[in-house]
């Protein structure tokens, strides 16, 4: 297992390098340069002044050299300075990060809590109507735009005091209960899509497992139906569900961008939007890089969890 983890960690290096190359060079695609953006259209510069400015901003070298220098700074935790506020980018991002992570985790928990039981209920088909209703709910969950759902929640529940954040955000550490109350609807709006995905995977996986011989054996032994379903079927059916949930966690982070905007929550997603609207490229670069790195790490963690639960994965690796 140890060697497997090390190998997987090493395989991250080229992916992360590629991510950094994309983030760095995409910003270079901006018509004009970031420097021009920074100066705006009102400022007239002579070519000599421009050269001087380029030197000051460290833009006077060939692009590959600039990339290597930039990467060197990023690895040391220096993500550069905001074009708008001249503040260091990284501390500002890190200050906004906990809220986005909290919403993501909250949304993941809601998705699992809603998705798995619904999937099981749907698969065991005690009432055919329940199955149909749950499947329709699942399709709807996949089809509703998150930001629309969030807007509807604002319309419907704005009378519930303390439930809809709208600008008076309190952090978890200052008032935990109020904070959780406030983040419930935003997290639900993000989590419902994933709940639908989890429900559909749980259902399919349960249906497959329920056909297995060992389930028939368990039933024949005279075990209670509940025991068969939870201890025998669900335990085996849950594996692919965990993988799907893990791989989708990154998308929850993406969803947080829109939802934070709808509920006016001061998270990293709103910072990203602000940076895009303001054309604050160092800030955008920093946020995208950080989210992509987190995304890759979550995916790796999912793989490792899966491998540690299912011994067949590692056997396959050796056989190759």
């Amino acid at each position, binding site marked *: 297992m140890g060697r497997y983890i090390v190998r997987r960690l090493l395989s991250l290096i*080229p*992916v*992360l390098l*590629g*991510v950094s190359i*994309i*983030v760095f060079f*995409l*910003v270079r*695609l*901006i*018509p004009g340069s970031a420097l021009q953006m920074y100066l705006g259209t009102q400022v007239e510069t002579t070519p000599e002044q421009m050269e001087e400015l380029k030197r000051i901003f460290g833009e006077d070298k060939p692009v590959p050299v600039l990339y290597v220098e930039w990467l060197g700074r990023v690895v040391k935790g220096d993500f550069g300075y905001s074009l708008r506020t001249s503040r260091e980018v990284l501390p500002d991002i890190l200050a906004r990060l906990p809220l986005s992570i909290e919403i993501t985790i909250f949304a993941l928990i809601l998705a699992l809590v809603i998705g798995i039981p619904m999937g099981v209920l749907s698969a065991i088909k005690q009432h055919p109507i329940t199955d149909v209703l749950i499947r329709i709910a699942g*399709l*709807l969950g*996949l*089809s*509703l*735009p*998150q*930001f*629309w759902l969030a*807007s*509807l929640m*604002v*319309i419907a529940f*704005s009378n519930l005091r303390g439930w809809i954040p709208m600008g008076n955000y309190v952090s978890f550490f200052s008032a935990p209960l109020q904070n959780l109350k406030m983040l419930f609807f935003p997290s639900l709006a993000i989590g419902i899509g994933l709940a639908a995905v989890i429900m559909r995977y749980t259902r*399919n996986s349960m*249906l*497959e497992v329920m*056909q297995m011989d060992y389930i028939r054996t368990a039933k024949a032994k005279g075990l209670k139906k509940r025991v068969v379903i939870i201890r025998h079927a669900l335990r085996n059916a849950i594996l692919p569900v965990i993988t799907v949930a893990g791989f989708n966690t*990154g*998308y929850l*982070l*993406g*969803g947080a*961008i*829109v939802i934070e*905007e*709808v509920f006016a929550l001061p998270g990293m997603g709103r910072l*990203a*939007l602000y*940076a*895009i*609207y303001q*054309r604050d490229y160092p800030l*955008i670069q920093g946020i*995208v890089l950080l*989210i*992509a790195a987190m*995304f*890759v790490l979550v995916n790796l963690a999912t793989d490792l969890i899966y491998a540690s639960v299912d011994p067949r994965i590692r056997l396959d690796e050796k056989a190759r």
Partner: protein
Amino acid sequence: MVGARLKKNIIALTGLGIIAFYVAVIVVSLFWLPFDPVAMDTSHLLEPPAIATGHLFGTDEFGRDILSRIMQGCSVSLIISISATLMGAVIGTLMGIWAGFLGGKWDQWIMRVADILFSFPSLLLAIFIMGILGEKTYNVIFAIGIVYIPQFARVSRGAILTLKGNEFVRAAFSNGAGKSYVLFKHLLPNIMMPLIVQISLSLSVAILLESALSFLGLGIQPPYPSWGNMLSSARKFMMLAPWTAIYPGLAISFLVLGFNLLGDGLRDILDPRLRNVK
């Protein structure tokens, strides 16, 4: 064979029916709209839906008819999501089938590029690209299309890998067929069905992505209507006039549902494993 099963599959048929309805709306909107979708009418600001006024879905903050705007936004949404999905599908599939077919170094390099693109949450990547390229319609297509490249690369590579060891491939080679010929004439037609399922499901997500971009002000720009930017401007008035937010959202959800149903139905038809489970 697929056609016959399609006729019996209620899920896929319902999906097709919904999509056909939207296509019909587009055709109608080319010739006739209840009102001019961009004409402002200060005497009918934020009017609730009513048959008497003729504004069946009400009016927005400029007195524009919401139904007409939804009808016109329909073609925008569909054209963008179809173009974006096709872009991702063509580039991604070409990458995937060559990677799977050639194997070795080529496979590693091509799939590594796909892995890297896969490391960005799709909405974040699309927002990032829009922020850099600027809010133009063709940039929206590009920003969404690029998100799909790795997905199609993976699906098509997997499908080619399972096929390329087959007898008919060796037979084609021993008949003297070249690599491109075997790949495009013998292998590609055989992986079309999983690709079509993927396309259908991608279309649904493309519509959601386009509406999210426009909602954030990074997609289609007003006054030209798109469902996303209608919802965006509705945000300021939705407490006062909920209909401005409800109908465009319903339009999105229903079309997305159509593509999801079609994709689900097609997958049921094509995946015999799930068919037995039913």
